[in-house]
């Protein structure tokens, strides 16, 4: 090809630019998975938390810093939606915090990229290891190695209005324990009339339904994904049982018409008004509803056709790969799980303790509904997938569409076939 010197120089320049840009992006070598090692570094440490879970960590860090003035912990709050991306970039550029408190459902994104330190040896030495929320430990483990531990927990529960239960002739001491009993109770409460509805859920909120609708499926003896989270199992009879119960309640108008559009903004307010019989929510709502005068409510595990279940939400905490103050980091984790700190600092902020043997404490005794919630951490589950955000949290994701097609459009066959391809497409990317 004919090329003047100037053209050639331009070509060289372009090539140099491409090369430079590639090198600039090319610092992404994979860290090796290493064997459990001694933790080193006892200087002051840094901790990243996500914005939604900031208050408890503030209290914890303040208590730690009072007790450990020479190795204080500095906390940085990161917006929930940017946490994983920012954290990964920080670790890769060698700028990671010593401690990372990450959403339970996202911890697999970190462990599959080998970004956390193996703490199996330290965890095995804990006398209360068996009391830690098992689903939180399992999802933070890879091939028997533990990389993070439960840090701040919240479980999903079925809330029911005791006043409406009594009015409808139901026993407020015996909340529904099966899906049939739930639908039956919803019918009786709706029959009270006067704008009262038996049931409610946020029908246009992806994350809300990951948290509160999956347990109906689990409690019916099945799951929405296979064991290693690589394939959707939307034709599981348990999925049908849970969604058909919702469809029945929608078809029979046992829930307000507005649930179809609720994107989470009005998730809590319906039940708060005292006109809703039952709704599944996180244990965080106990303290909100407690403050509502005249609202007499109870909580119970979420029922299915074969028992009850619950979603374990919240955060796990781990030590970053290459943390400069890993020993301080571990000491903080161990300290935060100690009986005293769990019962005083953690429980006092209204949070659940991460150990079932500390569930019974002065704070939960004063609020028995929190005790019910706290005891559930032993059986609560987490969906196991590295694509949790894409599948379950994204408002344009396949899970929400699947629920809406089934419940509101009323076409289970279409919901399953569209859902399977939607899940497959997001899992494949």
């Amino acid at each position, binding site marked *: 090809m004919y090329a003047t*010197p*100037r053209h050639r*120089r331009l070509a060289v*320049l*372009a090539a140099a*630019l*491409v090369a430079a*840009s*590639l090198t600039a*992006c090319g610092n*992404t070598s*994979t860290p090796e998975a290493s064997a459990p090692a001694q933790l080193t570094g006892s200087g002051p440490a840094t901790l990243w938390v996500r914005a939604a879970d900031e208050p408890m960590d503030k209290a914890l860090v303040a208590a730690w810093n009072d007790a450990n003035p020479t190795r204080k912990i500095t906390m940085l709050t990161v917006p929930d939606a940017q946490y*994983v*991306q920012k954290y*990964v970039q920080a670790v890769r550029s060698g700028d990671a915090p010593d401690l990372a408190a990450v959403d339970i459902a996202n911890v697999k*994104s970190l462990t*599959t*990229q080998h970004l956390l330190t193996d703490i199996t040896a330290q965890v095995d030495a804990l006398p209360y290891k068996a009391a830690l929320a098992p689903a939180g430990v399992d999802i933070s483990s890879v091939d028997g190695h533990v990389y993070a531990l439960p840090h701040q927990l919240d479980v999903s529960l079925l809330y029911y209005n005791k006043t409406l239960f009594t009015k409808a002739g139901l026993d407020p001491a015996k909340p529904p324990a099966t899906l049939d009993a739930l639908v039956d109770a919803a019918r009786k409460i709706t029959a009270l009339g006067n704008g009262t509805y038996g049931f409610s859920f946020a029908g*246009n909120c992806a994350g809300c339904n990951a948290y509160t609708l999956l347990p109906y499926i689990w409690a019916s003896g099945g799951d929405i994904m296979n064991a290693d989270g690589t394939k959707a199992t939307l034709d599981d009879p348990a999925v049908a049982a849970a969604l058909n119960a919702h469809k029945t309640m929608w078809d029979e108008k046992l829930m307000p*018409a*507005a649930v*179809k*559009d609720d*994107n989470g*903004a*009005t998730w809590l*307010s319906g039940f708060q008004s005292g006109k809703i019989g039952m709704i599944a929510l996180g244990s965080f709502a106990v303290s909100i509803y407690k403050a509502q005068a005249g609202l007499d409510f109870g909580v119970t595990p979420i029922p299915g056709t074969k028992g009850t279940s619950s979603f374990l939400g919240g955060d796990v905490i781990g030590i970053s790969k290459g943390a400069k103050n890993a020993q301080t980091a571990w000491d903080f984790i161990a300290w935060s799980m100690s009986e005293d700190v769990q019962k005083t600092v953690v429980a006092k902020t209204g949070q659940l303790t991460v150990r079932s043997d500390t569930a019974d404490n002065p704070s939960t005794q004063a609020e028995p509904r929190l005790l019910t919630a706290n005891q559930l951490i032993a059986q609560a589950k987490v969906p196991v997938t590295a*694509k949790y*955000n*894409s599948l379950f949290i*994204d*408002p*344009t994701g396949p899970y929400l*569409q699947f629920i*809406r097609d089934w419940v509101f459009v009323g076409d289970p066959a279409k919901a399953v076939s569209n859902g399977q391809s939607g899940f497959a*497409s*997001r899992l494949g*990317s």
Partner: protein
Amino acid sequence: MALSVSAGTRRRRGPQARRQRLGLLFVLPAVLLVLGIFVLPVIVTGVMSFYDWSLLGDRTFVGLSNYERLAGDVQFWQSLGFTTLYTVIVTAALLVVGFALALAVRNRRRGVGLLRTAYVMPVVIGFATASYLTLWLLDDRIGIVPDLLRRVGLVDGNVSVFSDFSSALTVVVVLVVWKTVGLTMLLLMSGMQAISKDFYEAAQVDGARPARMFRSITLPLLRPTIGLVLILTVIGSYLAFDQFFILTQGGPDNRTIPVVYLIYRAGFIDFNLGYSAAMSIGLMVILLILTSIQLLIVRTREDS
């Protein structure tokens, strides 16, 4: 770079050559800027699109497989269809409203400065800010609009504009027109002011009415300006993101997902930078084709 430029022109001497060298030096910063913030990112994106490139981890070269996936991606083509529909509606609305406003404020009159300022003001607001304003104005619990509608008695019960496709799209279009029509108006207005008054005077002498003057003088002489407005609006609309991300979140039932939303989703929710890059390149090619067609049409008309 500076060195190579001077080396390349060393052979030529004289005042003219020196002026050229000086000119090159003057444009150099601009050239570097374009290279650095446009050419380079496009090249990097192009390279990325041939990789399975995770935001979190490794990358492997996969050749054309991202593009193969793109060709068969139903959601991408649906989304492109929706973006096209949105673009057609927004472009038509902007042209009509922009024309009306430009005609209203083209001549100097009392108070016209105030009107011009008022129309152009929304242009300086960011799309995210404007979207949040709209979201709150329309919010069923705290917004003014649903409250007003209920007080007037037009609606009963809940007002949720984003649960219906046409009302959701209407809200977005109205927002976009409100926010960007000022720029369209400015462009059309300056185009109109550039038309010599002699034409209108001659037409008046011939007894032409205002409608006839608009059709036979204003419109034909505004063609280059209309072409520019069209190109700007079409490109801007195909790149729409903020307003949908904040207002509709792709709903109801995933029917309002513009292409850039998919690009964002692939890159930052699915962490698949490779596929995200392939979609970006795809969209860029489509936009280049559309813009070329528009330029061709405008030019032929100019020549004829």
